[in-house]
């Protein structure tokens, strides 16, 4: 579940290459692209429907008494219960229930959180921002750092640099994300012996922060450092492994020999010939790893009380607030499916074989 291990990633590289070659050839670029886009859109839609069906089964079919499950541990009036039963279509046939479920979803009626006394959709709306800030920053840093290290160690396969980078990647993959966060908190926030912590213990804003836009940005950035660092440390290792193995896949290719025969320096051969080719399969896999990124973000948000969707999921879990959990589950899944669609389109655009046509 927590992303495939570094070893299996190599197989996924092959997977990426396979899917690339299956779309590459063919004339009539414009119409071709429309077909490609159509197929990918359809696939994303099917995945989305599958998520909805799973959510329906999980939250409406499995519980013996969904209304009871939804209102666990809360005093609810008979009128509220009746409303809920009507909304969910309980007592009606399954397909009518599913229709109710779908209807609610399409109108973004994700339910009501009794814990926060707010609708689930508005709660999710409030928490998207912090999660996107955290995931965006750490994904960006991880990609840049991971690709750079991966290229370096793959190009000099077996060198000391490669051995250290690969070893560090494996060790970091083996660290539980939440524990790494805890350790960073203990060392850099609480402090150790004579060393006093320099970073905040959690949250996104200090109550004592000075007013003004610049100060707010600085304050948020100061709070962002530790959660972001945790996520980067855990995630970038996977990117190193991915990029390393796709660079190694390119090493034996004759076009590199040609480039060297032209008299290009080693550095240029790598930058202008090997990297562009190795980047292609890596992009796909990096996007495939987004699910793992989401998992990492949830635990990091919990440790640092970062007010995002992951922390919201954790808060929902404490009661448990089932409708809120259902909402975050559907949202996370839909977001990852959407990002994968973007990756597919991006891939098509990045592939020079296709773009040239």
């Amino acid at each position: 579940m927590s992303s495939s291990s570094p070893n299996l990633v190599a197989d996924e590289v092959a997977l990426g290459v396979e899917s690339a070659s299956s779309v590459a050839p063919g004339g009539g670029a414009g119409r071709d692209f429309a077909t490609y886009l159509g197929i990918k859109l359809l696939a994303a839609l099917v995945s989305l429907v599958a998520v909805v069906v799973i959510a329906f089964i999980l939250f409406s079919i499995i519980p013996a008494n969904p209304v009871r499950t939804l209102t666990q541990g809360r005093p609810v009036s008979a009128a509220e219960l009746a409303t809920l039963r009507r909304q969910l279509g309980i007592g009606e046939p399954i397909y009518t229930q599913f229709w109710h479920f779908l209807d609610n979803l399409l109108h973004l009626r994700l339910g009501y959180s009794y814990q926060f006394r707010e609708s689930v959709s508005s709660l999710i709306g409030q928490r998207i921002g912090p999660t996107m800030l955290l995931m965006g920053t750490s994904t960006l840093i991880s990609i840049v750092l991971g690709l750079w290290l991966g290229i370096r160690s793959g190009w000099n396969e077996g060198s000391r640099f490669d051995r250290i980078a690969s070893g560090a990647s494996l060790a970091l993959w083996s660290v539980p994300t939440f524990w790494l966060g805890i350790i960073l908190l203990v060392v850099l926030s609480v402090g150790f012996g004579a060393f006093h912590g320099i970073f905040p213990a959690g949250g996104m804003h200090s109550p004592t922060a000075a007013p003004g836009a610049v100060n707010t940005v600085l304050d948020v950035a100061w709070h962002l450092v530790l959660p972001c660092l945790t996520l980067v440390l855990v995630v970038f290792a996977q990117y190193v492994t991915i990029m390393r193995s796709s660079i190694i896949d390119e090493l034996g290719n004759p076009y590199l020999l040609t480039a060297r025969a032209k008299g290009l320096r080693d550095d240029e051969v790598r930058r202008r010939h090997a990297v562009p080719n190795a980047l292609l399969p890596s992009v796909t896999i990096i996007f495939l790893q987004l699910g793992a990124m989401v998992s990492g973000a949830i635990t990091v948000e919990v440790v640092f009380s970062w007010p995002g969707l992951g922390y919201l999921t954790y808060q929902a879990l404490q009661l448990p607030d089932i409708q809120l959990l259902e909402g975050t589950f559907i949202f996370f899944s839909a977001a990852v499916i959407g990002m994968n669609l973007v990756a597919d389109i991006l891939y098509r655009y990045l592939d020079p074989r296709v773009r040239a046509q």
Partner: protein
Amino acid sequence: MSATSAPLAHVTSVPGRSSRLRALVRMPGAVAGIAILVIVAAVAIGAPLFVHSYDLDVTKVNGPLLHAPTGAYPLGTDQSGRSELLLLAWGSRPSLLIGIIATALTMVLGTVIGLLAGHYQGIVGRLLMTVTDWFIVLPSLPLAIALSAVMGEGDTSITIAIAVTSWASTARLLRAQTLAVEARPFIERAKALGASNTQIMVRQVLPNVVPLILVSATLTVAGAILDQATLTFLGLGNPTEVSWGSMLNTAFANGDITAGAWWTLVPPGLAILVVVLGFSLTGRAVERVLNPRLAVER
């Protein structure tokens, strides 16, 4: 494996068992990994010999509360005065057990689906692979959280949640290998002799993919132990059980971070790290020795 040694023999010049062992011993990573696993397994199995139920019972222990390491308590004590060292030893049991059971479930699920998808290459196979790809892309932690929240907290729901969210990559590997094995002449021979689909899958293909299953299982245990720790940390585990994940959950919930009580926070995580590393190193080494050329034969 030995039942179908004939088809295996002419695949490639497979090195003998003893030379494989020798290759394994020459790899420092493999030796370290296996050593870690042996030690941890010994601690987990032997724990009942030196940890008694009253050592774990918060109402019966009489150590100092949340005290830094001393002579009597080499790893200090937790908020209830229990010895961290004993908790750590006992915690290896559920962590390993759930990891291994979840892996067994994952392997069964992944192998069955991978074999079926590889053998029936028509609509059935395509459909199975679509489902598999869907599970690979989907964020697994939200799904696992939803699953365990609906099923209620406890070991069973965690185990099921881990298996449901991790079988997909095994199925993918197994399908690729099944395709490779089925392309070989001895499958054609079996078909000509009138072997049924089930016979081909169980008697001919399965023995040839067992090494791959073993490698995949070793690596999956590593992931399953991490997942188990994460889900327990989030509060989905059995609340009365002592595991590495629940120790961290308790320490985190009690505010041991602000108290600076590093001795309740560092050891459980370090234990998880070491065990996961042990499984990963072993898996990688076995993979390299058996070298089923996972990525190439698709």
